[in-house]
Structure formats: C-alpha cells, structure tokens
C-alpha cells in the first residue's frame, strides 16, 4: 500500500489534518526516524529486499497512519502547553487588574525584552549569511556554505519556537524538520531553496529586529512614564522637590492633582500590561504562521 516512506508520511500528514501543525511536524519526524531505521535494518539483513514489501511489515508493527495519528492526538490532549490559559475572570475589576497576576502578561513582557537582543542577532545572522551565500556561489564552497547557512536558519527557527512556546504559551514544534535522507549536495540545496519554510523563517528573523526595537522602546517609554507619574507625588511631598520647573519658575502641584497623577500613572501601567499581553498573544500567532510549515 505504501511503496516508500514518503508515501506513508504523506498519508500520516493527511490523517493529522486538523490537529496542531507543530504536533504534526513532531509526528512526522518520529515516523521518519523509525521507518528509515527499520528499513535500513531490513536491507542489511537481506540486501536485495523489496522496499515496498519490507515497508509493509514494518508499518504493520509501527501502526497505520490513522493509528499513529490518533496516538499523538490522544497524548497531546492529556499534556497541556506550558502556560495554561487562565480562568476567565467574571468581574470588571478582575478583568482590568487580573492582568498583573496572569502569567501570560509576564511571559509576554519578558519575551518582548528578549526580542530586542535576539532580534539583533537574528538579523545580523540572516543578512550576513544570505549575502555571503550569494557571493560565495561563484566559488566552489558556495553550495555547501549556503546549505549550512539555510540549515542554521531552520535550527534558529526551532530555537525561537521553543522560546515562543515557553514565554507566550503557543504550541510550537519540538522536533527539527529533516530533509529527505540520501540527497546529493545540489539536490539538498534545491530542496531547501524550494521549501517555503526556509524563506518564511528567514523573513521572521529579519523582521525580529525592527519588532524588537519597537517592543523595547515602547515598553521602556510606557513603563518609565507610568512609574514616574506614580513616584512624582512622593517626591514633592517628602523632599519638597517641585515636579515641574521651567527656568526659575518652580511649580508645586496641589494635592488633588498629585493624587490624580499617581492614579493616572497606575492606570497607564495597567494599560501597558494589557498592551504587553495582547502583543504577546499576537506575536505568538504571527510566529506560528511564519515558523511552522
């Protein structure tokens, strides 16, 4: 029924349709590892074995695509992603201020700060690698270099996926994707170049830098601003230091304005938290669309 491993994987992919893309990728990786090892073992025992016949008995032991697919779905149903979705708060206050105790908020916040650093690294890596690959193409090392570079992009995409899953709670692949085994250098390069996944990952890496800078400056500005507003009344009350001074003019604000300022600062901080959580949610979806084929 299945003449090659690829046939089986194709059928498995079809069976996995509708389930999480990242889970599908893991299931395919496991199946590829097992089936190719089993096939190698079979051809070692009897060198002139018919591939389709050998595969038939191997699959009988491994399980049909629908059996395998349902095993993965079953397990996935029982394991939850690292950050569970919190219970929906039903009061208005819970809805507004619950953001401070929601782990997703802090995960998003951390992720946005980290993106500032990883974004620069990804961007540099992508741009340097791509331009070197293209210019090396006229040399003999061009093809191997480009393959290595594109493989590193896939590796970094996996790594970023782990980061996204840990901090943003979006299910991402846990296994690397494999190129078909036994390919020649040029064929391997062709496979990599025609893979949509490669280019989308590269695009993601390049876009991470502007996004990281945007996230970082937005967060720092908003957080500093709200903390400043919250601290201002204390500064005036305790140290008798004016909040606003223009030239020689020193302006002390009345008490009601001070209180208003502190409350405003706290509300700005709360708003920033909501913004961070929403951005994290959006970024998770965006990362999944670009990094998971």
């Amino acid at each position, binding site marked *: 029924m299945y003449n090659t491993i690829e046939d089986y994987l194709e059928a498995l992919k079809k069976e996995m349709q509708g389930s999480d893309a990242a889970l599908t990728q893991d299931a395919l990786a*496991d*199946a590829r590892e*097992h089936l*190719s090892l089993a096939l190698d073992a079979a051809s070692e025992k009897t060198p002139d074995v018919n591939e389709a016949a050998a595969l038939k008995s191997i699959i009988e*032991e*491994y*399980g049909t695509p629908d059996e*395998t697919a349902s095993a993965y779905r079953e397990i996935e149903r029982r394991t939850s992603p690292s950050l569970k979705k919190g219970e929906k708060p039903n009061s208005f206050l819970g809805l507004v201020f619950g953001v401070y105790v929601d782990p997703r908020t802090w995960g998003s916040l951390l992720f946005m700060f980290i993106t500032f650093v990883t974004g620069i690294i990804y961007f540099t890596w992508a741009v340097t690698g791509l331009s070197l690959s293209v210019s090396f193409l006229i040399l003999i090392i061009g093809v191997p270099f480009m393959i290595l570079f594109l493989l590193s992009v896939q590796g970094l995409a996996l790594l970023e996926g782990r980061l996204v899953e840990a901090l943003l709670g979006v299910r991402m692949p846990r296994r*690397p994707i494999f190129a078909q*085994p036994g390919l020649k250098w040029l064929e391997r390069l062709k496979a990599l170049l025609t893979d949509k996944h490669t280019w989308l990952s590269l695009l993601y890496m390049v876009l991470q830098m502007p996004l990281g800078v945007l996230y970082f400056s937005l967060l720092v500005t908003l957080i500093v601003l709200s903390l400043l507003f919250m601290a201002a009344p204390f500064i005036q009350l305790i140290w008798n230091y004016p909040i606003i001074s223009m030239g020689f003019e020193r302006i002390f604000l009345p008490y009601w304005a001070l209180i208003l300022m502190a409350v405003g600062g706290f509300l700005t901080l709360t708003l920033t938290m909501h913004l961070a959580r929403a951005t994290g949610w959006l970024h998770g979806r965006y990362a999944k669309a670009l990094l998971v084929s």
Partner: protein
Amino acid sequence: MTELSGHTKKFQKELNAGTSSLVLLSVLSRSKEAMYGYQIAKMLEESGPEIAIMKQGTLYPVLRSLEENGLLESLVEPSVSGPPRRYYKITEDGRGALVEWLEIWKQTKKFVDANLKG
C-alpha cells in the same frame, strides 16, 4: 494478528495508555546508555510475546510526554545516513516515579487477578 473487534481494540488501547509509560520508564531505567525509539521498539519486540500488544508508533508520543513531564530527557544526535536520532535517558524524577508506579502496578495486578478468579 487476527482482526480484533472495535470494542476489543479500544480496550487494548486504554490499557496500553497506562502500561506503556511504565514499561518505557522501566526499560530506560535498566539501560546504562541512552536509547533511541527504534532501539526500544526492537527490544520490546524481542522480549515480548508473539503477539504485538502495542503498535510501535504509539511509543513515540508516550516517550515525548514522559520527557515533557521531566521523567525522561533526550538528546538529538545526527547520524551518517538518514535522519538524526533522538536518544532518551531517564532522569532522577523518572526513577522516583518508577518506584511509585511499580508499587501501584503490583497492587493493581493483585486486585485485578483476585477479582478475575472470582
């Protein structure tokens, strides 16, 4: 293997859901070196009865969930031919869990056997 009816298949699957974790953990606790999925599947096949109780493909998601729960750890190693292999090793938490699971298994076995005899 003769074709089993739907109910029987479902029953077998539900039984396997628990026992496969126990078996995998026990196999890996006895192995001195890290093992990869195919190796484990082969070993189970050789030690086991003539009838294959569980499909080998179902072992992989179980290995994965054990890893996610911190009972196993894994390492990917590239191979010369074919895709890289994922090697699994038991963790300290895993050894702790195994001791408890074995005790539960002993009691379950006793309970089921006692009731089946009637």
